[in-house]
């Protein structure tokens, strides 16, 4: 039996996963993953944040959010060879530096070979509807929208109405610490995030919006994956867990892939 998962049902271009575990990574991944999601790319190179960028917490960490990336074009050029050959769907994540970036970013991916979908990183200060409409006008690629915990439930339906094919719940929660007298803002990663995401995802599932839901945040184990699937998620995204225990994430993928193949 093979439960394939469709993240863009009823859309002209499908986005079909062999199994529900999506891995966020800028590099290639040889384990049997359902899809690969890139780090969010911006139109132009994004310089690194001031130090300290990583602030330890018990059970996780705070990462100064102005994370660096080389810009969408350089990143695409560097990876398109691998992407063309990939049987695993590649989903490129995008973040805007200006309100009208979205169309440009989407257009750049429309001509990139091997890209199967787009993930938009929104936040409560971004006009989500406009971002999705711009992207939709520029590409037929399936669009996932990754939302913040604080307003995910409030804007979920509007995102779908604007043309998103699926919702990712959620971006990492925002936090801040005072370090040497200065406020350092960032987003928060680690297992403690997970119950907040599960609660929000389950509440959004109860809205029965009819679109696939992808859970993201603090997932570390097969039990975590199963908990999210039982709480209403169609798929999950895993990022941070790879940093602390890549071997166990690989095992997790194999176990989930195996269960699907039985």
């Amino acid at each position, binding site marked *: 039996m093979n439960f394939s998962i469709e993240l863009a049902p009823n859309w002209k271009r499908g986005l079909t996963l062999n199994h529900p575990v999506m891995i966020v*990574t800028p590099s290639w991944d040889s384990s049997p993953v359902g899809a690969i999601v890139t780090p969010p790319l911006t139109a132009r190179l994004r310089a690194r944040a001031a130090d*300290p960028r990583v602030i330890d917490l018990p059970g996780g960490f705070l*990462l100064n959010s102005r994370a*660096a990336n080389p810009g969408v074009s350089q990143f695409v050029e560097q990876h398109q060879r691998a992407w063309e050959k990939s049987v695993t769907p590649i989903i490129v994540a995008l973040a805007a530096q200006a309100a009208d970036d979205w169309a440009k970013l989407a257009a750049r991916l429309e001509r990139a070979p091997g890209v199967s979908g787009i993930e938009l990183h929104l936040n409560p200060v971004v006009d989500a509807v406009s971002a999705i409409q711009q992207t939709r006008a520029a590409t037929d690629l399936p669009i996932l929208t990754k939302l913040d915990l604080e307003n995910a439930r409030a804007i979920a339906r509007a995102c779908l109405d604007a043309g998103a094919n699926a919702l990712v719940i959620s971006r990492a929660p925002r936090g801040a610490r005072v370090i040497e007298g200065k406020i350092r803002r960032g987003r928060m990663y680690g297992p403690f995030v997970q119950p907040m995401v599960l609660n929000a995802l389950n509440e959004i599932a109860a809205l029965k919006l009819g679109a696939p839901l992808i859970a993201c945040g603090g997932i570390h184990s097969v039990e975590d994956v199963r908990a999210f699937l039982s709480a209403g998620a169609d798929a999950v995204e895993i990022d941070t867990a790879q*940093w602390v*225990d890549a071997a166990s994430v690989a095992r997790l993928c194999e176990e989930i892939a195996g269960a699907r193949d039985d």
Partner: protein
Amino acid sequence: MQIQTRIIANERLWANIQTITVTAPDLARTIRPGQFVLARAPNNFDPYLRRVLIPLQTRDDQIQFAMDAADPLVARAYPDAILDLLAPLGRAIHFDSNARHILLATDGARIAPLIFLAHAAIQSGRAVVLVARQTNASPIFPAALLPEEIEYHTTNENEAWMDADALAWADAIYACGTRAAYRELFDAISHARYRVPREFARVWMEAAMPCGVGECFACAIESARGFALTCQHGPFFDLVDI
């Protein structure tokens, strides 16, 4: 490579440098100066992120690492416990065969990355001079803890880090210090040797390295050659790129 190692010892070396010794036969054979490992205690998320461990020396199947004595992992690394290592990480240092005079320089307490390098240089028959400058924050590393083949010089904050004679003597320089100290080093070399040749001086860039494998970009630095990652292109970078 993610490996499970057993901890042999966990001891204070000096000041805030803690040493952790593990049994790791393959790694003890393959790890090179310039490289580091990331470590965590399995089944514990406090601390959550892996910590940077710097090799000090290897002996048979064992490796002795240095780490910050204030780090919460120290309390978790008790003898006989398992330590989960991601290793080896970072770019290895290979001495140029013409480089016979190796000058090591430290500003303050950051000396650990130079020690493994010193052992390797001595073993390959090179002459090694270590210059340590005392800062407000840190006393001088005790000579007794260094291989006796090293010629050891100390200076203080009011003096130049390295004098022109040392710079003229050196075939290659490896330094650990602050960015300000590296600027000073750059100026001193320019002054003593008129220019700073590529592959002459390499400096250890201190950075938080959560993933160690180029995935998180948290260790990105602006180098003269563009977007670079400390964990992959460093931690030792060519002084002319910084």
